[in-house]
């Protein structure tokens, strides 16, 4: 087990991502943050809080569940559906920033783009992730990355957040040899 990001690292990364989002979009006026449950939703709330402090105004922030759009539903037992909460401002014509904890195959984000298409037509869709671990299976790239963690497929990356797991931490674990 290997700690890749400490609580301080995570906090710094989220602060930097918040600034980058504001810089790229010339402020927060048109930005809507959508977190992908479960951990992405909490990260989105944190980024919204940091951005609100910088800008002095509330940032629309919601969640987007992708379960119903997954392409691997038939490969696993049924999953629980998590809430989708679109902010009152809607996403029509907005700059939507999707937020997730780990970017891996890219399939989650593909599902998220499909789910988003059902809700409306944003002006742009951007992607922020805490960790990019590589091994993409689809042509998808993050706009904002907390940390690039090149990893082997034998390893798993575990993101813990205070809201769910009681502490902030990203660790790399070697899967048990079978």
């Amino acid at each position, binding site marked *: 087990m290997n700690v890749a990001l400490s609580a301080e690292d995570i906090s710094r990364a989220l602060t930097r991502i918040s600034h980058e989002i504001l810089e790229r979009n010339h402020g927060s006026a048109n930005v809507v943050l959508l977190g992908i449950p479960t951990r992405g939703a909490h990260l989105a709330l944190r980024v919204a809080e940091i951005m609100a402090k910088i800008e002095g105004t509330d940032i629309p922030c919601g969640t987007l*569940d992708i379960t*119903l*759009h997954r392409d691997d*539903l*038939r*490969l*696993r*037992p*049924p*999953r*629980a*559906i*998590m*809430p*989708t909460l*679109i902010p009152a401002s809607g996403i029509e014509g907005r700059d939507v920033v999707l937020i997730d904890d780990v970017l891996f195959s890219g399939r989650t984000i593909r599902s998220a783009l*499909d789910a988003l298409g*059902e*809700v*409306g037509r944003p002006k742009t869709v951007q992607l922020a992730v805490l960790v990019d671990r590589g091994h993409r299976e689809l042509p998808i790239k993050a706009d904002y990355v907390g940390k690039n963690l090149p990893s082997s497929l034998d390893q798993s990356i575990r993101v813990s957040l205070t809201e769910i797991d009681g502490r902030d931490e990203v660790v790399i674990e070697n899967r048990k040899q079978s």
Partner: protein
Amino acid sequence: MKHLLSIDHLTVQEAVGILDTATELSRVNDGQLKKLPTLRGRTVVNLFAEDSTRTRISFEAAAKRLSADVINFSAKGSSISKGESLKDTAMTLQAMGADAVVIRHSASGAAQRLADNQWMSGAVINAGDGTHEHPSQAILDAFTIRKHLGKGASDLQGLHVAIVGDILHSRVARSNVLLLALLGAKVTLVAPPTLLPIGIEKWPCNVTYDFDSVLPVIDAVMMLRVQQERMTELFFPNAREYSRYYGLNAERMRKLKPTALIMHPGPMNRGLEISAEVADSARSVITEQVSNGVSVRMAILYVLLAGSPLDVGSI
């Protein structure tokens, strides 16, 4: 969970799981989007060997909103009316590759029989079997009650529900009693002695013959249809007397708690078990039950069909 045959087979976790899934799916139904790709390529067969409006349309709408292919067939106009057995019908469905069969049948236990035998490999959903059970109706009723009175709780702990009328012929009553009790609600059945089934003392509920006594204490009242088509003997002297003792009219409605819900699984006999004034009042959630039915049935189809096919290994 492979089939939905009876509330008796459900655990609290499974029941709450379906309700939670339905809650999320109802948000989908409220919004702009009506269609999800989740069950694309799956086939759902509606096998209705008994008349139905709501349940069949509701299952059809639910399956279509999840992008499943729907095949409807009813007894009239199919080979069932030529005397084809359930077994042969089931084997035909299997040959056509049905992933799920929604079955309504006048014989109690028809869905169970379909599931127990190896005639077909798909999921079986009981949409009402004789006077036995109607689980999806009970789940949508529980969903409606939880939405209005649940106060954020996942179950129905502490609520008191009265089910009034023709308990004897009602599959809705049996499924509802089992599910409401499973979710922690207190249930009181109200009916004349002639319309209560034998063995009622073993059901997890109270029984009374006096409707007026429960009015001030209940949180929801569920009126049942007097099922004249199943009544082969005389169960009450006449409709007016039944209506006077067991009908929900405006006067009785005034004795209810101001927050109490008025429910009816439909179709209603207006003027018999429920007066038109009550059915159309602001406190009645009867049409909302119908729209909740679609969300709940989407949840049932999702839970049974969205995951890995269970017969993968046997192909």
